[in-house]
C-alpha cells in the first residue's frame, strides 16, 4: 500500500521529466542538424571563393606569359588590362576567405601589386611610351611568382578534396569546447583561441612564407613600395616638449579654457607630440571614459617634433544652431590657417553637415593652385570656432617650388578638351601624379555635360589629358568623384 503510494507520487514526476528530456533531446538534435547545415553552406561559400581565386591566379599567370610573347603594343595593352581585372578579382575572392591578417597580408599585397603594376604599364603604353627592358624583366618575375602561387593553391585544393582540412566545421564535443565554447568567427591572431587556428590548412603557412620573401616593387602606381619611404617636406629644428606645449597654446583657439590631461607621442615619419585637453570647467576625468554614447568633449592637438608645426587639431564639442554661413566660415578658416603659419591658402571645396562646415584649402602661388599642399578645416557654424584642422598633407609636400612655365595657352589647352563639354571656367593647377610621387602642371577645366558637372585636367606642357573628375552636388556642398 505504502509502496504504491510512493509510486503514485513519483510516476507523474518521472513522466514529466522523461517528456522534458525527450523534448530537449529532439531540440538539441535539430539544433545540431541546423548547425551542421550552416557549416556546410559556409564551407561551400569558402571553397567557391578559394576556387575562384585559384582560377584568377592561373589566368594572371597565363596572361603575363602572353604579354611577354606578343610583339604588338595594342595586344599587350589588352593583356595588361586583363591581368588587372583578374588580379583584382583574385584579391576580392582571397579576402573573402577565413584567413587571419597574419597569414594573408603578403598574398593580398602580391595580388593587388601585380594588378597595379599592370595598370601602370597600360597607362604608359596608352600614352605612347613603349615597355622598357626593366618592366619586361619585372613581368617575367611576376609571372614566375604567379605560377608558384598557383601551384601552391593546387596543393591546398587537393588537400581539401581529400578531406585533409575544412574551412569550417561544426563544433565537436570535447572537453575544450565544453569549457571554452566554440568561436568559429574569432580571430586566432588576436584571441589566441586554438580551436579556429586548427582549421587553417598547413599549406597557407608555406604560401605566407613564400609571399613574405618577395622583393619590393618600385613603379609608377599608388601601391608601389617606394611611396612608403616619403619624408615630410616641412621640417625644422627638434622642439622640446615645453616649447611644443607653448606652441600648442598658440595654435589652439581659446586655449586658456583648456587643461592638458595627457601627452602622447606619435612615432611615424611625421613624429609629433599629441596633447589631450579637457575644458578647464569640467570635473577632472569627466571627459574620458564617460558614460555611453557621448564620452564628453575633448580636444587633441598634434604638434610636430621637428619644427613645432601644427599637424592636427580635433575638438569634439557638439555645435548648436548655425548663426554664420559658409562664406563667413571660409574666411574664418583662411584667417586661422594664416595665423598658425600656413598663409596663402585658398578655399577649394566646402560642405556643411549638422552645423559644421568642412573646408579644404589649397596653397596658391603665382596664380597656380597647388593641390598637393592642402589643409582642411572644420568650422563650427554656431560661433565660428575652429573645431578641427588637418595639415598633414601640407607638411608632407609644401616646399619652395620653381614652377615651370606652361607650354600651352589656356585656349590651346581648351582645344584638347572634349568639345561636348561646355567649359565654364579654367584655372592653372599643380596636381599630384597617380603614384603621388610627381607633380604635374595642368589646366583645370570646369564644365558640364548634360546634367553633370566635370573637372578635366589637361597637362600644360604636353597637352595630354591627365584626369577627369565628376563633381557631385549634395545638400550641404560639393565633392568630386
Amino acid at each position, binding site marked *: 500500500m505504502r509502496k504504491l503510494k510512493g509510486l503514485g507520487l513519483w510516476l507523474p514526476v518521472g513522466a514529466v521529466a522523461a517528456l522534458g528530456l525527450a523534448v530537449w533531446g529532439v531540440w538539441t538534435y535539430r539544433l545540431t542538424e541546423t548547425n551542421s547545415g550552416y557549416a556546410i553552406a559556409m564551407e561551400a561559400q569558402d571553397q567557391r571563393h578559394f576556387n575562384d581565386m585559384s582560377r584568377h591566379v592561373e589566368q594572371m599567370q597565363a596572361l603575363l606569359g602572353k604579354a611577354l610573347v606578343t610583339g604588338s603594343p595594342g595586344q599587350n595593352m589588352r593583356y595588361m588590362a586583363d591581368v588587372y581585372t583578374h588580379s583584382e578579382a583574385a584579391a576580392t575572392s582571397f579576402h573573402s576567405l577565413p584567413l587571419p591578417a597574419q597569414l594573408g597580408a603578403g598574398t593580398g599585397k602580391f595580388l593587388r601589386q601585380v594588378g597595379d603594376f599592370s595598370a601602370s604599364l597600360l597607362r604608359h603604353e596608352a600614352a605612347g611610351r613603349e615597355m622598357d627592358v626593366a618592366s619586361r624583366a619585372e613581368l617575367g618575375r611576376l609571372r614566375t611568382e604567379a605560377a608558384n602561387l598557383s601551384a601552391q593553391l593546387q596543393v591546398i585544393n587537393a588537400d581539401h578534396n581529400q578531406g585533409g582540412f575544412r574551412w569550417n566545421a561544426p563544433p565537436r564535443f570535447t572537453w575544450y569546447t565544453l569549457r571554452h565554447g566554440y568561436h568559429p568567427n574569432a580571430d586566432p591572431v*588576436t584571441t589566441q583561441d586554438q580551436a579556429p587556428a586548427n582549421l587553417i590548412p598547413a599549406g597557407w603557412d608555406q604560401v605566407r612564407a613564400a609571399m613574405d620573401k618577395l622583393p619590393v616593387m618600385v613603379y609608377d602606381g599608388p601601391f608601389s613600395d617606394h611611396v612608403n619611404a616619403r619624408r615630410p617636406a616641412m621640417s625644422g629644428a627638434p622642439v622640446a616638449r615645453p616649447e611644443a606645449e607653448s606652441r600648442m597654446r598658440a595654435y589652439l583657439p581659446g586655449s586658456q579654457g583648456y587643461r592638458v590631461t595627457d601627452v602622447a607621442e606619435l612615432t611615424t615619419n611625421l613624429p609629433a607630440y599629441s596633447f589631450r585637453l579637457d575644458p578647464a570647467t569640467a570635473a577632472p576625468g569627466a571627459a574620458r571614459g564617460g558614460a555611453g554614447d557621448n564620452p564628453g568633449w575633448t580636444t587633441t592637438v598634434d604638434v610636430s617634433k621637428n619644427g613645432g608645426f601644427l599637424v592636427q587639431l580635433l575638438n569634439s564639442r557638439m555645435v548648436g544652431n548655425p548663426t554664420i554661413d559658409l562664406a563667413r566660415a571660409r574666411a574664418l578658416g583662411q584667417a586661422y590657417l594664416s595665423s598658425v603659419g600656413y598663409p596663402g591658402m585658398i578655399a577649394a571645396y566646402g560642405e556643411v553637415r549638422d552645423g559644421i562646415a*568642412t573646408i579644404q584649402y589649397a596653397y596658391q602661388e603665382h596664380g597656380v593652385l597647388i593641390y598637393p599642399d592642402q589643409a582642411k578645416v572644420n568650422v563650427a557654424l554656431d560661433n565660428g570656432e575652429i573645431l578641427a584642422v588637418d595639415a598633414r598633407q601640407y607638411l608632407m609636400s609644401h616646399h619652395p617650388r620653381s614652377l615651370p612655365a606652361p607650354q600651352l595657352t589656356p585656349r590651346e589647352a581648351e582645344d584638347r578638351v572634349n568639345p561636348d563639354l561646355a567649359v565654364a571656367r579654367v584655372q592653372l593647377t599643380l596636381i599630384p601624379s597617380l603614384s603621388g610621387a610627381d607633380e604635374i602642371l595642368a589646366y583645370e577645366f570646369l564644365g558640364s555635360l548634360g546634367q553633370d558637372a566635370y573637372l578635366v585636367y589637361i597637362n600644360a606642357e604636353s597637352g595630354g589629358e591627365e584626369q577627369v573628375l565628376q563633381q557631385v552636388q549634395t545638400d550641404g556642398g560639393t565633392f568630386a568623384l
Partner: protein
Amino acid sequence: MGRRIAVGLLLALLLVTAFSWPASAQPRTTLRWGSRGGDVTVAQRRLATWGYYRGRVDGIYGRLTYGAVITFQRRNRLRVDGVVGPATWSALGYTGRAAAPAAVRPRTAATSRSDEQNLLARVISAEARGEPYEGQVAVGAVLLNRVSDPRFPSTISGVVYERYAFEAVSNGTIYQPPAATAVRAARDALNGWDPTQGAVFYWNPAKPVSRWVWSRTIHKRIGNHVFAR
C-alpha cells in the same frame, strides 16, 4: 605612412577639386502649405530623419508636412507658423544656399557616400563606444587606411566584413544604430582626419592578443586602444 600620404594626395585631388561654391547660389525658397518642389523634398527628408515627419517624401507640402513643421518649430523655440522661412531652414541645418539643380539630378553618388558613412559610423559606434572622440576618429581612419593598403580589401564594406577582422561584425553589434558622436567621427575620418597617421591595426592591450600583433610598429595609444601599422 608614405603610402597613406600618397593615396591621401590622390584623395586630395579628388576632394579638393570639387569647386565653385555654386555660382547660381540662391537662398532656399520659403515653404508653406501647398508648396511643391525640390526644397519641399529636402525639408521632408530632413524632418523624416529627425523623426518629425512620418509621411511619404513626395515634395508636396500637405497636412502631414505642416504637422511636422509645427512640432519642429515648437520644440526648437521658433515662431510656430508652419512656414519654413530662413530661421526654420537654418534650424534644419540648411544655411543659405540651395543647390537647386541637385534635387533633380540622379543622386547615386551622394547616396553611396552616405551609405559608406553610415557603415563606418556603425563600426565606430560598436568598436569604440566610450572611447575619447580622437579614438573614435582613429578607428574610422584605420578602416580607411586599410582600404588604401594593398594588403587589405579595396572597399570599405570589404574591409569591414573581412572574416576575423572586427569583433563588432563577429558579435553582431555592428547592426545597432550608431551613436551621434560616431556619425560625426565617421564623417571626419572620411574627410581625411587620421589621429594615428596611417595605422592599420588596433587592439585593446588589456585583452589577450597574440605576440604577432605586438610585433607591429606602434604609432600611438588612444584611450583603451593601441594603434599600429
